[in-house]
């Protein structure tokens, strides 16, 4: 269980995240929604401590994550895997090595630097790649792959961290509609099949309604909605997204949904 207690973050004079209190975890698929610049990324990055909170605490199973340092901080980061909009792979390294980056926290530094991975770790990385049907490209350079393939490699990297939690920061914002499906399905598989909690920033409301079992709405850095997707009415969505509301509510034009799912989600 991950508990956020009045977490804030200030950039200069701008309050990006304003005293948010939340509870995550227990194997759910939580969508964080809101317009661009609402503070969604900052919130996720604070959980992984890529951004330091200006105020408030983040507790994981009773441990104050915001106070961790050095090896303990690195161990925490390994437990809450991060997935980025731009994939953040090392383009010049092959796919297998990129996935094995997820093992760095468990392997001795000397072995890792010399790339002496154990066969168990290699098996784990390949099994993760096979989950998403991309084990055949294990020897290719990451920069030669399509966006959808790169994001699946990034998810495989997250998976071999054997994390408690996966934080996905706009994972499909750089992808075309077909790859959006493939990647969201991969995240759903991680959640349902492996029982790892997923917290996912999404711009598209339709994707959020379809994939998430709980939605958290953020506007101007403040928490304005926290409930099941069915409880998110159009009027609340308009409040959340302001002028962008029509774009996100009518998103199906950009990402056509299978008919049955669209009806069920709406």
């Amino acid at each position, binding site marked *: 269980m991950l508990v956020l207690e009045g977490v804030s973050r200030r*950039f*200069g004079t*701008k309050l*990006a995240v304003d005293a948010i209190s939340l509870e995550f975890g227990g194997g759910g698929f939580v969508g964080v929604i809101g317009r*661009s*610049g*609402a503070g*969604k*990324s*900052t919130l996720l*990055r604070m959980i992984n401590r890529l*951004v330091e909170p200006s105020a408030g605490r983040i507790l994981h199973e009773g441990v104050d994550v915001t106070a961790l340092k050095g090896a303990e901080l690195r161990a925490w980061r390994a437990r809450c895997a991060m997935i980025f909009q731009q994939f953040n792979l090392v383009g010049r390294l092959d796919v*297998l090595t990129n996935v094995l980056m997820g093992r760095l926290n468990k392997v001795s530094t000397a072995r890792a630097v010399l790339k002496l991975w154990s*066969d*168990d770790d*290699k*098996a*784990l990385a*390949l*099994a*993760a790649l*096979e*989950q998403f049907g991309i*084990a055949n490209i*294990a*020897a290719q350079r990451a920069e030669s792959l399509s966006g959808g393939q790169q994001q699946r490699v990034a998810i495989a990297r997250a*998976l*071999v961290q*054997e994390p408690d939690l996966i934080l996905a920061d706009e994972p499909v914002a750089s992808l075309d509609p077909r790859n959006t499906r493939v990647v969201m399905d991969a995240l759903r598989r991680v959640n349902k*099949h*492996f*029982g790892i909690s997923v917290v996912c920033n999404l711009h598209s409301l339709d994707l959020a309604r379809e994939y998430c079992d709980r939605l958290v709405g953020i506007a101007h850095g403040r928490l304005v909605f926290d409930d099941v997707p069915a409880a998110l009415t159009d009027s609340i969505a308009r409040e959340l997204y302001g002028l962008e509301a029509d774009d996100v509510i009518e998103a199906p034009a950009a990402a056509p949904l299978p008919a049955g799912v669209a009806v069920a989600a709406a």
Partner: protein
Amino acid sequence: MTGPLRHSALADRGGLERRHPRIFRPPPGPRVATVALIVGAVGLAICAMWWLEFSFDRIGSGLVQLGYFLQLMVPPSHGGKLSHYLGALAETLAIAFLGTLLAAVLALPAGVLAAKNVVANRILHFFIRRSLDTVRGVDTLIWALIFVSAVGLGPFAGMLAIAAADFGAFGKLFSEAIENSDRKPIEGVVASGGGELHAVRFGVLPQVFPVMLSQVLYYIESNTRSATIIGIVGAGGIGLHLAEEIRTLEWDRVAFLVLMILVTVAVIDFISARLRFAIIGRRVAAPA
């Protein structure tokens, strides 16, 4: 920690190894080549040390001698020649600054022409590259000796020496920065109907400008040190005094001069860091 992934990976270990044999038993080629390269480099270094009569004994006795000089250096003293020294230091700074500036201005067009992604003409490209190599192949000190003979003793020869040597260096560095630039902005400019000059001005230069700027600023600092050396061969500046005091074994004055140069270089370093940030602008890492 045994999650479902680990469980299935270990259960299917045989299958995984069968399906991906090259990953579990990679061909030894690359590893062997790396090890061979390291062994070769170490071997070569040992040969070179033997050939150059590398001797720990001589390092030891040299250190004793250096310790003796160090004693003579304390306390540093200008021996009543402070105004001479300050004037010479200003001259050195002027040599470094003007020389670097001249080199950078001349190297900009040369660097653009030497970049493969800008100039497609292979003959022109080859000609410019080799010219830059030739200029660079002659060290600043040699250029200083040449210009001292050509235009006479003094700081003008020093400035020309630095400009000539760094023209070659900048030409190479600039052209490589341009070759490493991202192709996408260039495509954007060309697709909007821009010509080749537009593509360089708006597609390439904004990308490479920060790299060039930091290189030029570093060279100004580095040339302040070089300018002391070329002063020794008569090309003006503080190097002349330094050579003189070393020759007459006035170690306290040598120490004073060295300290002056150290402080100057530190000040330049400080100013150039400020300047670089002021011009490039700090990248604000504020995510959405």
